[in-house]
């Protein structure tokens, strides 16, 4: 209750205080009160006691300091009734106690999970039902992502592409999140979320085209490998700077809000990204603007070589939400069903309450940061091995799927053979495809070519004529 009061605006606070004796509301309700009859639109039983208030209380009807908290008796724990100050944002009680708020909670925020390490659903766990077709598609997509990562990584090692970065260990986050969204939801990626594109139909050939920088790459060969973008799939261009997408997400979401779209923005970041100023900017703007953004933090323990113990204090990422007035949840990022259920529920809240949510998924970056990194230099092999085997998200999800009778070892073998062949074919094809032509160096800086670029293109072409040997032969002039 205390948490709720702190996060709520004044009017809501008063509502609760006045009704607290009969409001069926507690922490357990707040976390997840869902059940298998979870299909109806307004299924958040736990919000019933305040949903009317929430829905009526939209950003644009807010709040001037003096108008609030009129003559409502205010009590606090210390029993000092009516001792308070009307202050912008709501009435604040006075207290004679000089109490500092603790720097962290006594207990760490628990982590929502559905499947145990052996792939059994935990008795009493509450989750979104997944049918056979979805479950199998999710598992197959994870296998595809895993094989793509393995072969593309190998291709980089062979010098066929300049760079690569795997999602190994984070397959559940990638695929289960994608599965819980609709294609209309707009993705503002960090860079370790190619599984969303895969789920949405971006083909292995399209991935290869980007990594090889072919003429068929939608980014026209301008960005490093793995910097995918697809307008068709509502997937904004990956950009290397960390967390810059977060304030942008608030702007994209504000547009959805103004257009009354039944969609939200999902903005990804890693644990390191939460230290950036743009993390603060993004969450604060989304909260204040009441923008429908689902902020998804993949807390995989490592920002290149920096462990989270050197990244932040307090209890990780999930607790940061409350400071911004953003509802948040910590989930097991290696539990496919937990990710799927939490994102499904969060999406509903984000869209129908028109406000952001922060999800912290605990996971582990099993691979190196990228092909430019050797993580064995800064973390123990057995730690990596543990997460690669015992805690790997795919192994326990596979157990669950197989136990349901939806998947067999034979199907597994067959699928892996097919995907492997497809990935190799895509790579071979991309390797043979010519690069984008030289004019693509100059276009798209602006909507049309300004004079300085026209001059520079002309000058460069003359240089090329004189010194053709200086330039790559595979770029068509």
């Amino acid at each position, binding site marked *: 209750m205390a948490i709720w009061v702190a996060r709520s605006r004044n009017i809501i606070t008063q509502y609760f205080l006045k009704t607290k004796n009969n409001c069926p509301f507690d922490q357990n309700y707040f976390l997840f009160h869902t059940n298998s009859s979870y299909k109806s639109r307004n299924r958040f039983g736990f919000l019933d006691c305040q949903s009317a208030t929430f829905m009526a209380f939209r950003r644009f009807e807010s709040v001037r300091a003096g108008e609030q908290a009129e003559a409502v008796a205010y009590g606090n724990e210390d029993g000092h009734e009516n001792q308070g100050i009307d202050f912008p944002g709501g009435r604040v009680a006075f207290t004679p106690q000089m109490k500092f708020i603790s720097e962290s909670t006594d207990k760490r925020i628990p982590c929502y999970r559905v499947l145990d390490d052996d792939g059994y659903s935990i008795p009493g766990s509450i989750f979104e039902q997944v049918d056979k077709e979805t479950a199998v598609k999710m598992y197959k997509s994870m296998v595809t992502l895993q094989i793509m990562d393995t072969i593309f990584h190998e291709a980089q090692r062979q010098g066929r592409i300049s760079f690569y970065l795997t999602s190994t260990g984070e397959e559940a986050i990638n695929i289960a999140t994608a599965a819980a969204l609709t294609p209309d939801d707009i993705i503002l990626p960090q860079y370790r979320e190619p599984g969303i594109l895969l789920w949405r139909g971006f083909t292995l050939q399209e991935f290869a085209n980007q990594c090889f920088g072919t003429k068929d790459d939608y980014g026209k060969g301008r960005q490093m490998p793995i910097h995918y973008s697809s307008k068709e799939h509502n997937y904004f261009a990956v950009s290397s700077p960390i967390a810059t997408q977060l304030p942008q997400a608030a702007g994209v979401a504000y547009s959805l809000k103004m257009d009354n779209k039944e969609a939200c923005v999902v903005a990804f970041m890693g644990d390191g990204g939460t230290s950036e100023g743009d993390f603060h900017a993004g969450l604060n703007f989304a909260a204040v603007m009441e923008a429908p953004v689902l902020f998804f933090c993949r807390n995989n323990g490592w920002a290149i070589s920096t462990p989270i113990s050197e990244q932040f204090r307090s209890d990780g990422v999930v607790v940061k939400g409350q400071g911004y007035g953003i509802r948040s949840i910590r989930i097991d990022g290696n539990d496919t069903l937990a990710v799927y259920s939490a994102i499904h529920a969060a999406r509903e809240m984000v869209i129908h309450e028109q406000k952001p949510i922060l999800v912290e998924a605990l996971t582990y970056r099993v691979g190196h940061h990228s092909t430019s990194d050797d993580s064995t230099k800064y973390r123990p092999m057995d730690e990596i091995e543990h997460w690669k085997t015992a805690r790997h998200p795919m192994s326990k999800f596979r157990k669950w799927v197989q136990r349901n009778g939806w998947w067999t070892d034979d199907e597994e073998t067959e699928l892996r053979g097919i995907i492997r062949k497809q990935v190799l074919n895509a790579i071979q094809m991309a390797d043979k495809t010519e690069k984008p032509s030289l004019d693509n160096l100059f276009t798209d800086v602006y*909507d049309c070519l300004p004079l300085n670029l026209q001059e520079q293109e002309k000058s460069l072409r003359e240089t090329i004529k004189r010194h053709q040997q200086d330039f790559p032969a595979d770029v068509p002039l």
Partner: protein
Amino acid sequence: MASSLRRIARLSLISRYTSTDGRWNTLRGLSTATDDLNSPNQCWTSNKPVNLFSAINQALHIALETDPRAYVFGEDVGFGGVFRCTTGLADRFGKRRVFNTPLCEQGIVGFAIGLAAMGNRAIAEIQFADYIFPAFDQIVNEAAKFRYRSGNQFNCGGLTIRAPYGAVGHGGHYHSQSPEAFFCHVPGIKVVIPRSPQQAKGLLLSCIRDPNPVVFFEPKWLYRLAVEEVPEQDFMLPLSEAEVIREGSDITLVGWGAQLSIMEQACVEAEKDGISCELIDLKTLIPWDKETVEASVNKTGRLLVSHEAPITGGFGAEISASIVERCFLRLEAPVARVCGLDTPFPLVFEPFYLPTKNKMLDAIKSTVNY
């Protein structure tokens, strides 16, 4: 003393803008040469004298009125803005389209990029150009590359960032700077600076409607000081087109924004000594109109560039280098630069720091007599 002199000097120039004598008509005649560009069907029915912040305000009213997907926001924008540029907008267009943001420049620009990427016109205000630097990453790494990096699948061309810049007589380090050169090093954005109310309105409307992200620096010293007849209706002035605002034959002077009024005074003084100066308002710094400057220097054989920003690495250096490349054999003297000093922008020493009329006059004479 010197500071107030400078202010008076600006005032006298401004009053000349508003007068109906021949000088003003000449200026106006030149500056309206491109006015028919936007709407051949419109005739200019009513030109009222307004100051620069009111001209900006008119442009924002028109931008919001003519495009339901246009938004105006920034720190303290809701009540009309600390410079009153957004007065009346929230009342007329509602708080969904005109609103305050948290005090966070990277947030303002990041939010604006996202909004623009969805096909909206995002008109973001940074309260002072001195405070734009937290947003530098969003402008340089995000806005400027948004179209290029996605192969033109996405763009944030609807983005316009407005920021008051430049000296104001008492602004010290953090209310006076002219940071335009930082942004002129960034392919993918445009940088535009108006010199007067009429220019401000026409150029701002062009920036808002331009399909590329634009940083629009407003000369805050002129917000109230510059008064000029401005057409009430919707009109646009072309970007990347410089304008000869005073014709001359002995030397070309190139500048932008508030500095043009100081340069204008130097031209008038020089004329008394028999030196005929041609004055060019660059207006758009990138991509800039080399051809107009080149043609002028080919005529006069001499060039002086002036800006308030520190001389080293200033945009004057770029103009100087480009014109030397193009007009080397025609130049009769080294290109002169009269700019701010390479110090932080000072308070007490502001009159020493600034590129004043007499500093310019000295440079004009020594260039002509080289």
